[in-house]
């Protein structure tokens, strides 16, 4: 790690005012320090936000839940309200990382995890995300873990989070404070595709701080499933993951949400795919159609083309599991 200075404000406005050109906020630190040790991140100042009052989980007036940005991943997954009303979120969180990391990592920080692309992490090799303009060796290199949807000439990396896949499916809202004040960002607008600016993972402006995540009332507690496929049974990033949530009435789907992880630079959703399920019987033919729609335009590289078929099967399996009812 390069030398840096350190500050620990106790108020949000104080934290934001401390933020300078090469500052980073730190909470759990599980990804930031990891990257700093590899010289991928080289901040001059760390602003420790763990002293801010952002660690509560509260019900909102409209029946949703507001999660403070500093709530740890473990506490969130095991919170009674989340387990009961948003089991999809609890399951996605518990499918990620390790118990130790989940005890450390914050809710806000989880959104800001950076890709696990090998090339991004190895600061001796080219990478457009790490050093714009140097190239993307993954395109013609080791791309088994990489994107099949929404990738660009410049970058084929994927977002590594499990929690975010569930948050995307649940239509969460991100609360942000920054130099320009507070704003709310719909989850689907929070992360971005790489395009010509792969160095930007999300739409946060310089100095903005995530303060909370809000979940709407609809938690799909009856019919949801999180399916994660990876190279070992635990403690590995997803090749493909699926968050599936259904509202079913008399065997007919009234509302559906599907988000994919491990396939793109952001959790992947498709309105047409979800719409195709509405009014249909919660049966394999409908799931198959939705999978086709979700994966429209998918294209792979030398080592990851299998993900397209894997994702198709995973979507069908997750929808079938959700239709059967949320597993205990």
């Amino acid at each position, binding site marked *: 790690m390069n030398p840096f200075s350190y500050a620990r404000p106790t108020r949000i406005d104080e934290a934001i005012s401390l933020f300078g050109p090469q500052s980073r906020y730190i909470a759990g630190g599980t990804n930031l320090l990891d990257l700093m040790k590899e010289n991928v991140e080289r901040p001059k100042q760390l602003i420790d936000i763990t002293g801010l009052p952002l660690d509560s989980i509260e019900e909102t007036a409209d029946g949703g839940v507001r999660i403070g940005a500093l709530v740890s991943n473990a506490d969130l997954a095991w919170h009674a309200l989340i387990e009961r009303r948003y089991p999809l979120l609890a399951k996605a969180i518990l499918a990620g990382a390790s118990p130790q990391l989940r005890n*450390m990592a914050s809710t806000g920080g989880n959104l800001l995890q950076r890709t696990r692309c090998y090339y991004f992490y190895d600061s001796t090799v080219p990478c457009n995300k790490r050093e714009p303009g140097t190239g993307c060796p993954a395109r013609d290199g080791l791309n088994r873990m990489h994107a099949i949807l929404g990738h660009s000439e410049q970058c084929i990396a994927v977002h590594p989070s499990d929690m975010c896949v569930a948050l995307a499916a649940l239509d969460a809202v991100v609360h942000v404070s920054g130099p320009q004040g507070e704003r709310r960002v719909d989850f689907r607008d929070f992360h971005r595709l790489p395009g010509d600016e792969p160095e930007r993972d999300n739409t946060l402006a310089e100095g903005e701080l995530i303060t909370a995540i809000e979940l709407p009332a609809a938690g799909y507690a009856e019919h949801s499933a999180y399916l994660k496929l990876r190279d070992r049974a635990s403690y590995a990033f997803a090749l493909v993951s699926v968050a599936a949530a259904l509202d079913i009435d008399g065997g007919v789907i009234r509302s559906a949400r599907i988000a994919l992880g491990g396939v793109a630079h952001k959790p992947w959703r498709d309105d047409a795919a979800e719409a195709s399920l509405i009014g249909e019987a919660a049966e394999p033919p409908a799931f198959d159609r939705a999978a086709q729609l979700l994966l429209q335009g998918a294209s792979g590289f030398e080592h990851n083309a299998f993900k397209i078929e894997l994702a198709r099967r995973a979507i069908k399996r997750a929808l079938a599991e959700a239709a059967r009812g949320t597993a205990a």
Partner: protein
Amino acid sequence: MTEASANADGIAICSITIKLNGEPRTLEVYPWTTLLDMLREQLDLTGTKKGCDHGQCGACTVLLNGKRINACLTLAIMHDGAELTTIEGLASEDGLHPMQTAFVTHDAFQCGYCTPGQICSAIGMVAEGRAQSADDIREQMSGNLCRCGAYPNILAAIEAAMPETRNRVGVFEAGASADGHDGVREVKP
């Protein structure tokens, strides 16, 4: 935490106080000193191991305010006032912690390098109170790699030591934060 002095770059060395294995300790640390390096290099508490330094192996697992964390991925400076238990703090005058004893009797290690992390992790897991079956333990101990492959014996040791460990540590109430700002509340075992 107080700023004690600044070096040539204007980087402050800070003084922190932590309760380490029951003893209050005041230490001067650079901002970039990880909790792990503080233990191993500044305090010569080398029982906490460095296997990857990136949160990918679990060898550095310690109990921070009773919860298991990776000491390699957190800065010492962020834990002023915290309570920290390492492998060196588990045994008492009465002898080894039941989890330590079980690891010996079930031969739950070979080279021993992942062992302190496994034991701290296992105690943290028992306190979390979420492991109800062998498969739960396997999953919830998956943050601790053992290259010697002693996993079945680790499982056996944990199963054996679980009841007594539960009696000692109690089980956390859901929602208590890892940094213990609102206190780690124990519920009755």
